[in-house]
């Protein structure tokens, strides 16, 4: 075979120490290639059709969509949605770390308390938790901080004055998120080699300092990706608090379309905003992952632009996908 090559191309020096294996064209291979192209064309046609329906649809009323996209009420809803997500994640992460440490502690009481919490909050729907918290007053009329079992009272307050729409919404989202964050943080901590703690202790660090300075930072590459996914899920799930009339994005849209009867255009507005927010979050997540990936890889991971570029290349030139993405 090597001889054939140098025969056909005189400028290539003949190398006789090896033979080259060449790709063979079989009927089955040709059929597969044709099939691939047929599938690609069908998908492309469907895609174009979907875009055509979206663009030309009468019910979507793109003019209305454009008008409401930057409407004051909608923008304030977007802001509220973002605030709910940030507050919910903050509570979720803080409480999640505490719950994770409780689950990892050797104390049986701590362990059971944390497990019970997870059981409760992961075993019931978020929507029900939101309604439950909002109606807490009818269940626990007064919130009292003091010594239990009839001891002196330190602070006491009417539950109704504590549980407003906003506090119920934030609490419900945060408490629910904490249950999921607990498991993420726990998995992250467990992913760090035990030797890291031992080396820290041997150097004279306390467990707490070792956790903060050594263990948690190294758990971050494991913790961040699912946390980002959770934050994006929470961003969308925050629309559930519209049931207790929390004025977030969806509720604001509902207020408008129940008066104007332009449901579809407003739901499109809502979707566009959610897509914009989740897209930005995804990019933010990527940079966080890059920051906390320090020291875990020999070279720094590709930037978002590089990765996006590669994906684009693989879409445009499907045959070469394997080269870029796996690297």
């Amino acid at each position, binding site marked *: 075979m090597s001889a054939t090559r140098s025969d056909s191309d005189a400028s290539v020096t003949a190398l006789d120490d090896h033979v080259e294996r060449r790709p063979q064209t079989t009927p089955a291979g040709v059929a597969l290639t044709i099939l691939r192209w047929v599938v690609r064309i069908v998908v492309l046609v469907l895609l174009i059709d979907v875009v055509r329906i979206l663009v030309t649809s009468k019910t979507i009323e793109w003019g209305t969509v454009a008008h409401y996209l930057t409407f004051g009420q909608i923008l304030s809803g977007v802001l509220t949605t973002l605030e709910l997500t940030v507050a919910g994640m903050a509570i979720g992460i803080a409480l999640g770390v505490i719950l994770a440490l409780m689950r990892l502690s050797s104390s049986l009481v701590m362990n059971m308390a944390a497990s019970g919490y997870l059981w409760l909050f992961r075993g019931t729907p978020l929507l029900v938790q939101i309604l439950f918290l909002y109606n807490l007053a009818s269940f626990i009329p007064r919130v009292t901080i003091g010594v239990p079992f009839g001891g002196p009272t330190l602070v006491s307050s009417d539950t109704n004055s504590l549980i407003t729409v906003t506090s119920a919404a934030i609490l419900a989202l945060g408490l629910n998120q904490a249950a999921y964050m607990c498991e993420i943080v726990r998995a992250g901590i467990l992913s760090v080699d035990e030797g890291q703690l031992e080396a*820290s202790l041997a150097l004279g660090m306390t467990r707490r300092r070792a956790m903060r300075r050594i263990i948690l930072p190294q758990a971050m590459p494991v913790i961040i990706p699912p946390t980002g996914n959770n934050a994006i899920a929470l961003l969308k799930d925050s629309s559930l608090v519209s049931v207790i009339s929390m004025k977030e994005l969806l509720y604001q849209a509902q207020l408008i379309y129940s008066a104007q009867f332009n449901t579809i255009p407003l739901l499109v507005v809502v979707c566009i905003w959610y897509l914009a927010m989740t897209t930005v979050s995804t990019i933010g997540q990527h940079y966080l992952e890059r920051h906390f990936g320090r020291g875990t890889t020999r070279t720094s991971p590709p930037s978002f632009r590089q990765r996006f570029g590669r994906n684009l290349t693989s879409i445009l030139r499907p045959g070469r996908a394997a080269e870029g993405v796996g690297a």
Partner: protein
Amino acid sequence: MTRPPSTDRPLLRLCGIHKRFGDNHVLRGVDLDIAAREVVCLIGPSGSGKTTLLRCVNHLEVPTEGRAILEGELLGQYTHRGRLVPLPPRELAAQRSAIGMVFQHFNLFGHKTALENVIEAPTQVRGVSRKEAVGTATELLRRVGLADKADAYPRQLSGGQKQRVAIARALAMSPKLMLFDEPTSALDPEIVGEVLDVMRQLAADGMTMLVATHEMTFARDVADRVVFMDGGVIVEQGPPNQVLTAPTHERTKRFLARLL
């Protein structure tokens, strides 16, 4: 290697150390005194309790019975109403900071560069200023031959380089005693030498060292005393040429014969 005669009080004293893991009685009464500037090599078959003994010294493992005393100070415990009770974490941490430990698998902090690994404990535990800590760390890295690797992350270092950074990291706390747990066992044979050279230099500089090792050449050349452990007890001990070349106990002979 001859050393100045030890002072009256040993730097480290282990008294009747027992350790049980459930039913597994791993250490069965170990007594060992180590003088200041002394280098003691701990040898013995796998599973004989060398690692456990080292970990009992700095209370990474709490002894079931017995006491470890460093410069006359009881480690990890204190007497409360006539009983020995565990020291609070903060005090125990302070005691540990005076005992350097080097692990078989290095345990370098993976998210920190070599330099950051070395300055971590001085700045965080001792409250040394970053500037001063960096100065000391740079000098230590130079001593272990890694001045040019200060900014490298552990992943970018070879096993031997990692272990030398780990030694520098322990030295940064100016320990009174260094514990080594098979520091070269995880290394490729051709790299072992570079770590042993650093340890040799450390011994020559007068560091007190307790070294669990299978490197008999190192033990012969550097140790003042070789301690042979088997089944959780010290079977015999003495100067290296006595224990390694003319052992008196059958178990020691069998262990050494298997190594050759």
